[in-house]
C-alpha cells in the first residue's frame, strides 16, 4: 500500500521484483545499488542463504527527490524465487504497489516462468489484489545468453507465454551487465506513481 504522509510530505511506494529462482531479481537490485551508490544513501539489505540465494528478501530503499512538493521514496524488494519459499514470497508481497516480473529467457526455465507468474496472481489474491489491476512491468532477463551456447527463448515466445493477457510494458534485459535495468525500473516507478497520482498531485 502506498503510504502518503501529508504531515511530513512523504510518499513511499513499494515495488517488488518477482520471478522464478535465479532469474535475476537480486541482480537487478545489485546493479541499481552499484550504479547509483552516490544517490542511494541507504544500504541495501539482503537476507540471503549461504549459497547466495535470497532467503527472505532484498531491500533497497531510496529517495528520488521531490515531485510536486512530495518526497518520493521508492522501496524495492525482491522475493526469494525458490519454490519452497512461497510463504515468504507472500509476506514480501504485502502492501505491494508495483511489480517487476523478472523472467529468465533460458529455455529450461520456460515452465518456471509461467508457474511463477501464475503463483504471483494467486499470492496477490490473498491480499485481495488483482494482478491485472496493478502496475506491472515485464523483464526478460539474461538476453545476453543469445551469444552463448545456452538455448534461450525468443522474445516472441516470452511475450506469448507471459504477456499475452497482461499486456504489460516489457523489456529485454541483461541484469548482470545492466542492460535495460534502469529503464525497467523507471517504467515501473512511473507507472506506480501514475497509478496513485490522482490522490497525490
Amino acid at each position: 500500500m502506498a503510504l502518503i504522509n501529508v504531515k511530513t510530505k512523504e510518499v513511499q511506494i513499494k515495488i517488488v521484483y518477482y520471478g522464478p529462482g535465479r532469474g535475476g531479481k537480486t541482480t537487478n537490485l545489485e546493479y541499481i545499488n552499484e550504479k547509483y551508490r552516490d544517490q542511494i544513501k541507504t544500504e541495501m539489505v539482503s537476507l540471503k542463504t549461504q549459497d547466495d540465494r535470497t532467503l527472505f528478501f532484498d531491500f533497497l530503499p531510496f529517495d528520488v527527490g521531490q515531485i510536486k512538493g512530495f518526497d518520493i521514496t521508492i522501496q524495492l524488494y525482491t522475493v526469494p524465487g525458490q519454490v519452497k519459499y512461497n510463504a515468504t514470497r507472500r509476506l514480501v508481497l504485502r502492501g505491494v504497489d508495483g511489480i517487476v516480473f523478472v523472467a529468465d529467457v533460458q529455455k529450461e526455465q520456460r515452465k518456471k516462468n509461467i508457474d511463477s507468474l501464475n503463483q504471483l496472481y494467486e499470492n496477490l489474491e490473498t491480499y485481495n489484489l488483482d494482478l491485472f489491476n496493478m502496475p506491472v512491468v515485464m523483464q526478460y532477463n539474461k538476453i545476453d545468453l543469445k551469444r552463448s551456447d545456452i538455448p534461450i527463448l525468443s522474445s516472441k515466445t516470452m511475450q506469448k507465454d507471459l504477456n499475452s493477457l497482461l499486456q504489460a510494458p516489457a523489456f529485454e534485459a541483461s541484469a548482470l551487465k545492466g542492460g535495460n535495468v534502469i529503464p525497467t525500473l523507471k517504467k515501473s516507478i512511473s507507472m506506480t506513481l501514475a497509478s496513485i497520482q490522482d490522490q497525490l498531485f
Partner: protein
Amino acid sequence: MNSLAELKNIVASLNENITGDDITTFQKLISQLGQQYEGNTNVTTFLKMMRSLSKYLAFKKNNAHADSIPALNSIVMQLEKVINDPDLKEDDASQILSDEIEKYKTLKNKIASKPSITDNDINDLKAVILSVDWEISDVTLLNFETVTTNLLKQFKNYKIHYTFLKIIHSIGRYIGRQKANAPTDSISFLRSVFENFELIILTPEMTFKEKKQILETDINRFYEFKQKIPRQKKTTNLKDDTSEDESFSPALSHIKKTGMAAADEVVPLTTLGESEGFPLEEKTDSDKMAPALADKKSSSMGPRDIMDDLFSVKESPADELLDAIHLQDIPGQSPSQALNMLNQTRNIPSDGVKNFTPQNMDNEPIPEIGNRLDEFFNLEAPEDSDESFEESLSKREDKNDDSGGPLPDPDFDILTRLKTTIKTPESLQDKSSLMSINQDISLLEKSWQNDPEKTCLLQIISSLTNVLKNQPETVLQENKSTTNEADENIPDTPQEETVGVLGKIKGMFTS
C-alpha cells in the same frame, strides 16, 4: 511414665520428619508432663526448653536448624534420666540440667546468629523478582507478595535480613501499585537490593559490621528512591476535538476498477542489444505450454501479433528514424483524459497519512514524474546507455510534432505554431507574421506566468526576434546564405538557437 514413653516416640518420629501433627502431640505431652511434675523445678525447666524448641520446630519444621533435633533428643534423654532414676541426687540432677541449658543456649545462639535460609528460599525470591522483571501482572505480583511475606515472617527476629526483605517488599509493592507509572529504575533497584541480600546470606563469614554497611547503603538508596517518586500527574494531549477533523473519503472508494485492456492497445517491448533483429525464432519452441494466467482472465481479445509495435534502443540514427516511423502508429492516450490530468487543479489533501492500493491503471504519468526520474537516474556519466535511450526518445518525440504528439494541449499548439512561423526566414520581415509571433509569445507568457524558467525563455525568444527584425533586409539575406554553409562552424546561430530553445521548452513540457 506413659507420657514420657509417648514423648520419646514422638521425638523419634520427629527425627525422621517434622510434621505439624507430631509437634502438636509433642506439645500436648509436654503439658501433660508439666502437670504431672508440677512441683519439680528441674523437670519444669527441662519442659520449658522443650516447649521453646517445639515452638521453633513448629515454625521451621524441616527447615529447622540442623542441631535442633539432636538438642531435643539430648534434652529428652536427660529428662528421662532425671525422671526415671530414683537414686539421682539433687546436685547431679541440677548438673545435668545445667549442661542441657548450656547446650540449649548454644543452639539458640547458633539459630540467632545464622538465620537458616535454604537455597529454596533464595531461589524462590529470585524467581519472583525475575518474573516481575519480565512481566508486571497480577499473577507475578501475587507470587512476589506471597514469597516476600513468607520470608519476612521467617526473618522477623533477624534485623539485618528483615530490613533487606522489607525494602524488597516495599519496592515490589510500590511497583505493583504504580504498574506502568513506576519509575524506570525501580526494577533494577529491586534487583540490586536482592543481590546484596543474597551476598550477605552466601557469605556467612562476613562480619556484622560489613553486613550493616551494605544494608545502610541500601537504606539510603531506598530513601532516595522514595523521594524521586514523581508527584506530577501525567497529562495526555489527546485531542478530543474531532470537530476540526476534515472529512476524508474512505480508502479505495475513489479508485476505479480498471477494465480489461482494450483490444487494440499496444504492448511495447523494449529490446536490448547492438544487433538488429532478434535471434531466429526457435523452431523447437513448442506451443504446448499454456501461457501464464490463461485461466485467470477470460479475454475477448484475439491473439495479437506481439512483434507489431516493437521499438528498440539502438545506436544509429537510422534506427531512430525507423523507430519514429514505428511510433507514428502508436495511438496516444485519450486526449481528453490527458488534458484533464494536466489542467486539473486538485488541491493536495491536507489530511495526515493515507494508505491505499494503487489500482488506476489508465493514468498517463504526469510530466513531473518523468522529469524527476530522468534527473535522478541520469546523473551518471554519459556513457550510460540509458541516457542515450532517453535522448533518442526525446528526439523521436520532437519528430512527432507534426503528427500530433503524445500530449496535445492548447499551449502546445501555440508553441508549434510559433516554431513554424519563426522557422520561416521571411517571417521576421513580414508584419503579420511578426504580429502573430508576438501574439503567440504573449499568449504563452500569460499561460506560463507561474513558471519563471519558461517565461524567461520566452523573453529570450522575444528579444532575439526583435534583434533580427531590426537587421537590414539585405544583410539578413546575405547572412542567411553564409549561415547555411557556416552552420556547422557557428553552432549558435539564432535560428538553431531558437530551435534549440524551443526544443528545450518542448522537452520540459512533454517528457
